[in-house]
């Protein structure tokens, strides 16, 4: 791309998903001096037979965009009109892709919790689905590891291991495993599988000697040059390059699509990660983003590492947690009692199981009744919770790092297993995916996110309005200003702010005194344990607030310490969550539990309460 950012006024971005291709139009508003997303078009993806050409779906979605906007975007040859004028064309066209299963990778490293984990982080950060992790200590015999590589047929392998100047023998052993497996790529017969080596630089020669003839070997800087530091950038960049050069070249129609785009095509999750990372960096925020899909749930986070005080981006894919194809796995992992605790009316096990299995065999159906909506949202809470638990266990400080101690540490020796996810420091929680973005009421999205993620202290909540984070991720590589402006103004629908004191307070006791200067007047009162309150505060509105937690509660400044702050509104408003953290346990008694749920749901205006209570009576 040779255009200067200031010359870019009209942008077309597409995301080629497995089922639909989504196009958005972003235009520069001369009057306001800002970029805004204006139109959105959608068409079925055409990567599978009978079309086997991804560009057909792309053109269809852009045609829809053209019709909706009244702007000519395609010429008579059905090519994107480049160079914009007031009524036609676009300055740049960019795209992401997850069609055909996205980028599927295997990673290998010497120790599972060290270089192999760093390699996994690099691959996930680049937007790949990590099919398996091979490590010297994964308790599998060499023939099992070879068999696994052959079976999975990844698009790419990332091989790492050893610090610079560290072990060579283990890394060469891993290279020999790959060589023995002689893996073939998933797409493109006759092509060599791309293998990126990002391990001990002293072992490069031996690794080259072992793999050169069998695979397309690329060597980059070690992703763990010393154990105290990760250097994931070179490996991530090379994964993107190889994705373009090898994987995309083999997918139907992608060669043509690559010629059209003004920036390399990014894997969809990689693009989502990119925009979250950029926004976090730009506005100095600690962010969690979640995309709950039908088959998988992606969680992205940017948190400051307490060890070196630098923001760290992490992404995890929970491949077994999704709202349609994988919905039965949620039941298996979360167990029935955990799901039914969120259902605000009596439901028997058989009924719940039937609904879950029906959703699995009819994945495209959406809830038509309040009953099925409430059940689906109960399941979503557990899927999100489990995905976040997995994310927290992955987003940890580096392991195997030397510690310096003083005598004061005698009784507080912490290990390196600790997660860097500190919910008290979380500034923004962004939800995405059908169940969150398309919930009939935003209050439902808010409640689901609060129940699943359990934000602590003061946290802003938002949802991705029309799932345009992938588009903005790839745009952020070309035009960061446009991407961040659209992200904050059009992509995110601010739900409001959740204020959740941390601490375990006894039932019905005082948790926090609050005083909020709302536009309609000051609201003062006492939040009690187990209570949830909602105050209206619209999108773009701010309110000064003073929170005085009781001795055992903490809203971010320490136990019992008063906090004066400005809180932001949203479509739902301000939510005061007095259920404590860890979240109070719901009563075992079914009636008491339902009463408890109903009081929360009523206070937060989550459902039509008359209908919901009628369900309970029925």
């Amino acid at each position, binding site marked *: 791309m040779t255009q200067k950012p200031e010359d870019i006024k009209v942008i077309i971005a597409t995301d080629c998903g497995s089922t639909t291709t989504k196009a958005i139009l972003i235009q520069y508003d001369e009057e306001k001096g800002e970029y805004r997303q204006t139109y959105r078009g959608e068409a079925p993806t055409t990567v599978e037979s009978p079309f086997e050409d991804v560009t057909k779906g792309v053109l269809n979605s852009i045609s829809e965009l053209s019709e909706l906007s009244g702007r000519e975007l395609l010429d008579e040859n059905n090519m994107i009109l480049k160079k914009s004028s007031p009524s036609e064309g676009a300055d740049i066209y960019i795209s992401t892709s997850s069609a055909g299963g996205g980028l599927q990778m295997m990673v290998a490293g010497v120790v599972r*919790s060290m270089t192999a984990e760093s390699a996994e982080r690099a691959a996930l950060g680049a937007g790949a689905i990590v099919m398996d992790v091979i490590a010297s200590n994964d308790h599998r015999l060499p023939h099992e590891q070879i068999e696994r590589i052959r079976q999975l047929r990844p698009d790419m392998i990332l091989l790492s291991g050893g*610090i610079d100047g560290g072990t060579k023998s283990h890394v060469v052993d891993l290279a020999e495993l790959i060589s023995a497996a002689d893996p073939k790529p998933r797409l493109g017969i006759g092509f060599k599988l791309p293998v990126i080596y990002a391990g001990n630089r002293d072992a490069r020669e031996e690794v080259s000697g072992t793999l050169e003839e069998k695979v397309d070997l690329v060597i980059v800087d070690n992703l763990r040059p010393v*154990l105290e530091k990760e250097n994931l950038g070179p490996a991530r960049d090379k994964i993107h390059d190889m994705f373009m050069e090898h994987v995309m070249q083999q997918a139907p129609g992608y060669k043509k699509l690559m010629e059209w785009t003004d920036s390399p095509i990014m894997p969809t999750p990689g693009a989502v990660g990119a925009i979250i990372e950029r926004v976090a960096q730009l506005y100095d925020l600690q962010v969690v983003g979640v995309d709950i899909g039908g088959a998988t749930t992606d969680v992205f986070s940017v948190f400051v590492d307490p060890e070196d005080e630098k923001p760290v981006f992490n992404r995890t894919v929970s491949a077994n947690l999704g709202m349609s194809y994988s919905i039965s796995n949620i039941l298996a992992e979360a167990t029935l009692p955990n799901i039914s605790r969120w259902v605000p009316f009596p439901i028997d096990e058989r009924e719940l199981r039937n609904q879950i299995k029906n959703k699995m065999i009819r994945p495209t159906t959406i809830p038509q009744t309040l009953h099925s909506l409430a059940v689906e949202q109960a399941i979503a809470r557990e899927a999100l919770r489990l995905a976040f638990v997995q994310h927290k266990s992955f987003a940890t400080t580096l392991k195997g790092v030397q510690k310096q101690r003083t005598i004061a540490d005698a009784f507080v020796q912490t290990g390196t297993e600790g997660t860097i996810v500190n919910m008290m420091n979380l500034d923004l929680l962004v939800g995405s995916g059908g169940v969150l973005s398309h919930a009939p009421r935003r209050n439902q999205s808010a409640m689901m996110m609060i129940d699943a993620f359990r934000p602590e202290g003061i946290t802003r909540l938002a949802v991705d309005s029309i799932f345009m984070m992938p588009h903005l991720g790839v745009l952020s590589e070309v035009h960061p200003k446009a991407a961040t402006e659209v992200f904050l103004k059009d992509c995110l629908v601010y739900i409001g702010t959740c204020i959740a004191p941390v601490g375990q307070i006894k039932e019905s006791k005082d948790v926090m005194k609050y005083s909020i200067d709302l536009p309609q007047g000051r609201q003062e009162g006492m939040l009690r344990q187990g209570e949830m309150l909602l105050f209206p505060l619209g999108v773009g509105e701010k309110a000064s607030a003073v929170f005085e937690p009781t001795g055992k509660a903490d809203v971010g400044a320490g136990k019992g310490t008063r906090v004066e702050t400005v809180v932001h509104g949203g479509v739902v408003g301000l939510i005061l969550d007095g259920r404590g953290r860890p979240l109070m346990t719901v009563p075992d008694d079914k009636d008491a539990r339902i009463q408890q749920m109903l009081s929360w749901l009523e206070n937060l205006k989550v459902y039509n309460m008359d209908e919901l209570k009628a369900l309970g009576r029925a």
Partner: protein
Amino acid sequence: MQTSGYRQAFRILIIVMLWAATPAGSLGVEPEDAGTGLPVIPPMNLVAADTPNDNGNGITLRWDCPPGDDGSGAVISGYVVLRSENSREGYLETAVLGPGTAKYIDNGPAADPVTGEKIHFIRNKPYYYRVAARYASGYRAVSGASGPVQGRAQWFHDGKIPVLTATVLFFALVILYIQKARLQGSELYVRPIAGMKEIDNAIGRATEMGRPILYVLGLGSPEDIATIASYTILARVARKTAEYRTELIVPCNEPIVMTIAQETVRNAYMEAGHPDAYSDDMVFFVTSMQFAYVAAVNGLMLREKTATNCYFGKFYAESLLLSETGNIAGSIQVAGTDEVAQLPFFVTTCDYTLIGEELYAASAYLGRDPLLLGALKAQDFAKALVMILIVAGAVLMSFGIDWLLEIITVRM
């Protein structure tokens, strides 16, 4: 005077009662001490009984001192305890006691006045007792006989019921927790010990760095508990180094410790499925001299550039020398010792330190053996109980309430 008449009548009444109460064979009672004018009364209500909670080598005698005994010796200069195997005759002196004495445990020999022979107290033999009060004026008033009574051994010392209760409770807890550990398996919660959790990472670090791991068993003898605990941890470390294919170095200070360590490491390598990777040279004897050993191990650390150093066992003055060298060499260090004096040195120089009993707990933590886990949990529970009793006792005693103290006091 009226008062004097009452006193006289009272004296006569006592004399009559004593006369009536004196058994046949009494050595006689003088009616009145000529010096003081008081009646000469023998010790009253003599009771001889087997001494409780002993091994049968004593009989306890109790009596009431005559009214004139104020403990000063002015009226009654003392008492003589007499013992016989026959109620009527053959009483021998076994003890001479001071004035004011009202209790005596007889377990000593009696001297035969004729032969001078010492006749020892014999368990389970019936004896009769009398106690004579010796008046300062020279009179001697002897009580009636009490007996027969035998010195018998007791099965249980009832003053130690709190000890029995605590013992029963503790063993019940051990059995309960062992059962629980068996049922719950590895799910039984044991507080994670950061040092133990990090051992895997420390071995991983050595593997990634391509450098060896040093394991020091300390200067203890093979029978020291700390050394025994260290073998368990060594087994775990060795199993991991076998799995990770990382070099392990175990320099020993004691030949027998070396032999046991060799066996431990060999077994661990076999269990890990890599017996071929084991070599006797991994575990070797250096020297028995403390500082020569330190010099050798420090040299090893610096030459071999060990990535991870483990110190588990008994350590003395060498602890800081070893761990400081390791720290300077940039190794991850994990230490554990029950030598309290050495802990500050380890804490400041090592990445992770197992404090005191954590070293023993480590074996349970690593092995997850129900027996060890159950015993560990029971010990923790018992310690918690003791702490609660101490606090509760202190609080109650502060308010003058002593029933808790009464319950838990052991009477010897």
